[in-house]
Structures are given as structure tokens and as C-alpha cells.
């Protein structure tokens, strides 16, 4: 299977686990999407560092875009890439984040370390 195919499958599995196995319904909650919006912004920076500085490279046969060049940075945008990294990384990141946050809330619902709860920020009271 290609990275593209595994990425789509991973997102589907993560969503199904969230909805029907852990029953946390994170994908229906504003708290999840607000958190994800912040996380994905930093994911693009982190991905850009990993891929733009050629710490990690990708094979064009496994992704929508072409292979990472041997001795230079790939396209910043375009050729199936966002911030140097393959768009497939968005699927990878989303499934990792959703699975993590769903499981975190799942354990909280089960009473595992439900407290101390977070907040408030130090500038409030």
C-alpha cells in the first residue's frame, strides 16, 4: 500500500475508534477542532523543518507528489506538498492526534486521573 492509501485508512480507523470504540465523539466537539487547528499549524512548521532540511525524505512511488530530491529541499508548495512535506503527512498527523486525544478523554471518562483538571490560566485569579 502507498503512504496515501495507508493515510486514508488510518484516518478512517481513528474516526471509527473515536465514535464507536472509545465513544468519545471527539470529531463532533468544538474543543477538539479548536485544539486541532492549533496543532496542525505547528505540525506544518515541524514537518517543514523535518522535510525542508532533508532529515526525512519520501519516495515518489508512495505519495501523490514526486520523490524528494537527492541533495536539495523539495517544493515548498505544490507537487503534492505543503510546507515541504507530503500532503499525506496531514492524514498521518490527524490520525495520530485524534487517536491520542480520544484515548486521553476515554481514560478520563473511566475515572483515570480525571483530576486535577486543567485551568484556569495564571492570568485569571
Amino acid at each position, binding site marked *: 500500500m*502507498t*503512504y496515501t492509501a*495507508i493515510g486514508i485508512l*488510518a484516518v478512517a480507523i481513528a474516526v471509527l475508534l473515536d465514535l464507536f470504540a472509545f465513544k*468519545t*465523539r*471527539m470529531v463532533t*466537539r*468544538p*474543543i*477538539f477542532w*479548536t*485544539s486541532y487547528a*492549533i*496543532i496542525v499549524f*505547528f505540525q506544518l512548521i*515541524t514537518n517543514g*523543518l*523535518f522535510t525542508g*532540511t*532533508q*532529515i*526525512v*525524505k*519520501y*519516495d515518489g*512511488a*508512495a*505519495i501523490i507528489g514526486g520523490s524528494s530530491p537527492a541533495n536539495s529541499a523539495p517544493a515548498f508548495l505544490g507537487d503534492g506538498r505543503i510546507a515541504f512535506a507530503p500532503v499525506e503527512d496531514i492524514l498521518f498527523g490527524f490520525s*495520530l*492526534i485524534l*487517536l*491520542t*486525544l480520544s*484515548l*486521553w*478523554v*476515554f*481514560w*478520563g*471518562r473511566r475515572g*483515570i*486521573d*480525571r*483530576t*486535577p*483538571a*486543567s*485551568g*484556569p*490560566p*495564571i492570568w485569571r485569579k
Partner: protein
Amino acid sequence: MDFGRWSYVAVLVFVILGSTWLEVFLRSRVLRRPKRLLLTIAPVLLPFLLWDAYAISQGHWYFTESRILGVYLPAGIPLDELLFFIVIPFAAILTLEAVRSVKGTTSPRWRAGDEVS
């Protein structure tokens, strides 16, 4: 700036610096719930390390050897990758709890479903 073998780890340090301040200033209180943290990160590690092992074996992605630590787990997974799958979920949980800290839990709209009351 060239961090050589520490290049990958340097990116993870950037993520840690960018997220751990939430624990203090937004009172995320994730480190104060270590059991829950461990029970969350450990099971997520497994499928993603398997994915990593498969992707590496198929050549989907590969690493510039001079920019990673050079220590490998079974199936040729760089130690740096294991650290990634610990640091990123930790940062994600810190973010969720920081958002919750700011939004509060009194409004039903902002609930995650695990609140005490």
C-alpha cells in the same frame, strides 16, 4: 544552523519548548496526571511504530543518516522516531488541556465529555 546527528532531536526540542510552557502558564496539568498520560501514549505508540516499520521497509520514507542519532530499534526504526511518537502526543494533550483551560468547562459547548460534573 547545523545540528548534525542531533538535527531530528532538535526539531523535537522545538516542539517541547513550544508546548511545555502551557503546563505552567495555562495550567494544563498533564504531567500531574502521569498514569493517564502513560495509558494514552503507550497504546498509540504500537500501531504507529508498526506503520513506521512498514513504511521504512517499503522505502516510503527514509532518513538522512548524518542527521539522526544513529541508534536503531528493531525493524530499522531510528530511536528519534520513538521519541517523536512520545513528544507529539504529549504536545497534543497539552494543547487540548490548554484550550480547555482558557474556555472553561461551564459552557456545554466546550466540553470534552470527561468532566467531573
